[in-house]
């Protein structure tokens, strides 16, 4: 069955059959060839019960929030405020790129939305101030990936839903690794620019009064973060409710910038419907595949498979990590997560690893997928905002940050507490 799954999955994906449909087709195959029960009879009920979900509605709400924020004009003021705080470091504005992406990640659940918001405001500066386009754009692409790590995160909601693990716990677990990654990105930037100052621009110096005055511009986004994440952490609201509060907050921000227009509302709805349906087709497909695999006894087959391999749990984990790095070069983020969850997570759990911890490890790996060529969504998002030069420059610029992510992967494996400390200490 494992061979069928792997060959079928990769073969159908290569034929460019839509990812969600591939998952259904695999499920049909499992039902026909590997199960003693007529699982197809349950198809309609499975599709209904998966999509009729009050926890999944957090997804369109968070997408709507992002769609409004992107159009609200807040990225500009946030960027210029953070410029005052971090651009004195070697590398100058490149740090503002990373810091703005980190702030946006704390209110947005999507990496692409984060990279898009930051690149629109940052890219014009690169040219005006004479930055090396490679490092400058690579930093935006990499910083944007934090959108799915720092809570809220649409990918973590999907992971929690498919593995039936706690979404608030996952959100908590993502916070420390997300912040560490952001710091790691900044350290690497500073190091590179100390070695070769021509890669960064002028270091920028501001007075403390200028910095303090800029704090008011950071306030709206900080408040939004506290409202969303704080309410989940303190158990006042479910992720869905927090997402609705976030939408309310984003509307207030857009209103205060005078950008809340009818046109914005309609564009946000169209964007939200499109992304939500795209995600839901994949999630429902994965859910059905999950169900058929469980009914066909994947658990015992995995045990046999693992015994047959004769590898230690750590070696198996490293093989899995390697698989994500390679697949991540070709398969888009959410698809990569969802198509592998039904097979990999039971395997990892059977090896004795923590499912919450593995969720965070998987997020770092799919973040890497966002900026590794040839298929790295954030690379394309930043390139399209640049509108000049070659995408190869963004790819090269993102490479140092891929190394930081690899270090984070190693750190998470060596010290799972990086992810698990916060959720366990607040329990």
């Amino acid at each position, binding site marked *: 069955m494992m061979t069928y799954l792997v060959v079928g999955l990769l073969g159908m*994906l*290569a*034929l*460019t*059959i*839509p*990812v969600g*449909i591939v998952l*259904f*087709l695999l499920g*049909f195959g499992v039902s026909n060839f590997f199960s003693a029960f007529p699982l197809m009879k349950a*198809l*309609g*009920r499975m*599709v*209904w019960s998966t*999509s*009729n*979900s*009050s926890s*999944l*509605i957090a997804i*369109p*709400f968070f*997408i*709507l929030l992002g769609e409004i924020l992107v159009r609200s004009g807040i990225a500009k003021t946030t960027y210029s405020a953070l410029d005052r705080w971090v651009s004195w470091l070697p590398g100058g504005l490149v740090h503002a790129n990373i810091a703005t992406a980190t702030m946006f990640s704390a209110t947005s659940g*999507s*990496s*692409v*939305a984060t990279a898009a918001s930051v690149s629109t405001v940052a890219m014009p500066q690169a040219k005006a101030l004479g930055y090396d386009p490679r490092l400058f754009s690579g930093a935006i692409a990499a910083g944007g990936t934090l959108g*799915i790590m720092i809570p809220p995160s*649409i990918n973590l909601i999907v992971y929690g839903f498919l593995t039936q693990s706690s979404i608030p716990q996952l959100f908590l677990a993502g916070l420390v690794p997300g912040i560490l990654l952001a710091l790691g990105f900044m350290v690497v930037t500073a190091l590179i620019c100390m070695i070769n100052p021509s890669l960064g621009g002028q270091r920028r110096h501001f007075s403390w009064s200028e910095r303090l005055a800029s704090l008011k511009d950071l306030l709206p986004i900080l408040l939004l973060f506290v409202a969303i994440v704080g309410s989940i952490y303190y158990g006042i*609201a479910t992720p869905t*409710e927090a997402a*609705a*509060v976030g939408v*309310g907050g984003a509307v207030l921000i857009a209103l205060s910038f005078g950008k809340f227009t009818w046109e914005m*509302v309609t564009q946000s*709805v*169209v964007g*939200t*419907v*499109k*992304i*939500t*349906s*795209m995600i*839901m*087709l*994949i999630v429902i497909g994965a859910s059905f595949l999950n169900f058929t695999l469980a009914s066909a006894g994947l658990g015992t087959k995995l045990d046999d498979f693992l015994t047959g391999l004769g590898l230690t749990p750590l070696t198996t984990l490293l093989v899995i990590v390697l698989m994500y790095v390679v697949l991540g070069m*070709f*398969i*888009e983020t*959410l*698809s990569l997560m969802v198509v592998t969850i039904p097979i990999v997570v039971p395997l990892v759990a059977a090896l004795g690893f923590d499912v919450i911890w593995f969720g965070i490890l998987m997020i770092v790996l799919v973040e890497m997928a966002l900026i590794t060529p*040839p*298929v790295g*969504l954030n690379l394309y*998002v930043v390139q*399209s905002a640049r509108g000049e030069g070659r995408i190869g420059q963004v790819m090269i610029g993102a490479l140092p940050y891929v190394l930081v992510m690899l270090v984070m992967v190693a750190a998470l494996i060596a010290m799972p507490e990086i992810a698990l400390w916060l959720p366990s200490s607040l329990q």
Partner: protein
Amino acid sequence: MIDAVLRGVKAVNRVTLIGLGILLWGGVMIVLVDITLRLFGTSLGGTDEISGYLMAIMAAWGMGYTLTVLGHIRIEALRDRLGDNLKLALDVLAIASVAVVVTLIAVKGWPVLERSWVSDSRANTPLETLLWTVQLPWLLGWAWFALVAWVQFLAALVLIVQGKKARALELIGTANEGQPQS
């Protein structure tokens, strides 16, 4: 003929989007009102249940629209390296697979609705929602998705037979060589 049919699909999707927009913002409002009421020690009750139904209906109806704007993710790493004819062959295979699978889902969804309708089933919740009232729009959404897929499949075939490959690629190819979201 093809153009008229495709225009019809577009028109229905436009109306659908308006409806989905109302559902989406309505969903946000209901949850916000409920949270506010909770601060005052009361509650609307059943918000969770309503959100679930909204999600099911929104996702089902949105999928047909998303298909027309080429929004469903396909892995294009291999396709990008092919010539137009082979690309088109893959696109036809992809849209055909969507049409067949989604039709199957819609057909298998029918017994779910039928059972609720025949036995007047109600949700096992405080709202005691009559299930067919929410399952009907849900299933119609999937049926619409299937119909859109078949229309696109057949329209693409006709365009290919007429030698209008560029238009067929536009109809069932990939959006801007793919800029999906995650």
